[in-house]
């Protein structure tokens, strides 16, 4: 299989650093239900030095997709590609992979072992990987101090012996980020990095993520339900619904003029404060074990309900024909019968 390349038209083609190729992840459903198709065919590319926001509501599969890209979950089919090579699940290669792709979780309090000091929490990664992880630093303490200052905790020595419960929420999240940075990864996957933080503290942590992208040349995949966060810091956004990406592209394009009815509804609800009439979908996303036939969004689609689909003559397709899986790349794409993909 050839190395996937992104098609970003106009600009010199870059290779993505992290990709999902036709990824499918399934879990056993509850009693009586079939298998839950958490990720049901996803192509996604993350390019060097970019921040990609993966947006969707709970149950859409974004968290599962993120963990599959990290190698924490095995896909049912499809592949994860990193730096041009397929990810192998053999223990040694997974361990090497870990140094290059790191995770930052939502809850900073739960992410840190309450019995370990800040120093131990940050040094844990170094100790697991041994001398190789030290890079150009002479000793562990110097590397830990460097990671802490890059994460904004200065002077770093002051934090070495503190325990997580002595720190504020924002500081704890910085410790978690430092723990990820200490391995000099190329990619950081952040799952709702500011959702548990106070509103006035969010901005500083988001500034840190941007600074890491600019100064340390990291790429970041930010998983969130918050579109405003995507507007704040992301370069590109991918919107997920029930295991598939339904729309993707540059943030300015997708959030200013969304095309897919689901994206339109999400954007309109968040912009309600502007006085625009929000499109509030009824009901809730269905169970991933019972994905609707045809377009998986059609039972809740306002375009179908309002007659726009009938007017465009695609109503039968909406109800009966499933959309193809969007290819990767950084172009703006949408999976909707109202906007047929031109080959």
């Amino acid at each position, binding site marked *: 299989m050839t190395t996937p390349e992104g098609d970003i038209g106009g600009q010199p083609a870059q290779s993505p650093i992290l990709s999902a190729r036709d990824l499918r992840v399934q879990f056993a459903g509850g009693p009586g239900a079939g298998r839950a198709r958490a990720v049901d065919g996803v192509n996604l590319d993350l390019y060097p030095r970019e921040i990609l926001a993966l947006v969707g509501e709970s149950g859409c599969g974004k968290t599962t997709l993120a963990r599959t890209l990290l190698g924490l979950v095995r896909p049912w089919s499809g592949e994860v590609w990193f730096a041009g090579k397929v990810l192998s699940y053999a223990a040694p290669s997974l361990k090497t992979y870990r140094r290059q792709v790191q995770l930052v979780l939502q809850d900073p309090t739960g992410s840190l072992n309450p019995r370990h000091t800040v120093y131990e929490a940050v040094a*844990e990664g170094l100790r697991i990987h041994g001398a190789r992880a030290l890079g150009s630093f002479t000793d562990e303490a110097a590397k830990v101090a460097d990671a802490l200052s890059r994460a904004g905790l200065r002077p770093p020595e002051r934090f070495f012996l503190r325990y997580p419960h002595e720190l504020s929420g924002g500081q704890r999240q910085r410790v978690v980020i430092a723990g990820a940075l200490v391995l000099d990864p190329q990619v950081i996957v952040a799952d709702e990095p500011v959702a548990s933080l106070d509103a006035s503290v969010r901005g500083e942590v988001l500034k840190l993520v941007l600074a890491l992208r600019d100064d340390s040349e990291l790429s970041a995949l930010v998983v969130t339900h918050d579109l405003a966060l995507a507007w704040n810091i992301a370069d590109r956004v991918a919107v997920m619904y029930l295991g598939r990406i339904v729309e993707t592209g540059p943030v300015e394009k997708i959030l200013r003029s969304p095309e897919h009815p689901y994206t339109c509804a999400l954007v309109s609800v968040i912009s309600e404060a502007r006085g625009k009439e929000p499109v509030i979908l009824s009901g809730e996303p269905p169970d991933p074990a019972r994905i609707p036939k045809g377009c998986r969004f059609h039972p809740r689609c306002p375009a179908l309900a309002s007659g726009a689909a009938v007017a465009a003559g695609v109503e039968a397709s909406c109800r009966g024909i499933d959309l193809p899986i969007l290819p990767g790349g950084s172009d703006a794409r949408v999976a909707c019968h109202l906007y047929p993909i031109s080959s």
Partner: protein
Amino acid sequence: MWGLAVLLVSIALALAAPLFISARDLSAVTAPGSPRQAPSLHFPLGTDAYGRSMVAVTIWGARISLLVGLAATVMSMVIGSLVGLLAGHFRAWVATVLMRVTDWFLVLPTLVLAAALASVLHRGVGTVIIAIGVTAWPGTARLVRAQTLTVEARPYIERARALGAGDWHIIRRHVLPNVMPVILAQTTLTVSAAVLAEATLAFLGLSDPTRVSWGTTLQLAQQVGAVSAGDWWILLPPGLAIVLIALAFTLCGRSLEAIFNPRLAAGP
């Protein structure tokens, strides 16, 4: 605090016993006093059926009882913690097999097993230790497994995996320190149960009758009909000693639990 004080005193006495109690005091043949004497100035707790001072017998008995109690506890805690940790960490078929084995041992009654072992192996202190150890570990295993599952559900375990940690690292650095408080608290409670079990088994004649322990002392008292004769001083000291030690260990266990789980210490 009281528990700890009582324990320390008892252990000190038990260890120091050979210094002030000679073999002569304990021998049935060369007993210092006349049999079944009521408490007096010379013999503060009276004498037993052989004429030995009850004080000497009770203190000496602490050695075997505490030894068996502690040895059986160590055995059961090590086996139980290991099984619990492995079952909780590895899940899948490993856990199923281990937990079924645990369930099987859980329903084995201590006394029946001890009797069976005593008839197969020689009757002695070693057999008693094995009997108690082998039947006490399942309770610990279940507790440790439950705690392991709880700890492993926490996000920092996932973070450790994402950092590249292997099973051994996760168990050693994260699971064990968080499970240790439960193990320690459970240990102190198990010791008191083991001491009681030893006394029961010895009383039933399944231990070595030539060794002086609280259980054998009680057995002797029963054999000579101390109750019906009204010779309370032959029964009471070992019985009280057992109660005291069991209580002391239980109190220590409660304090340890409160130390490790500050929410308990703070009250409702």
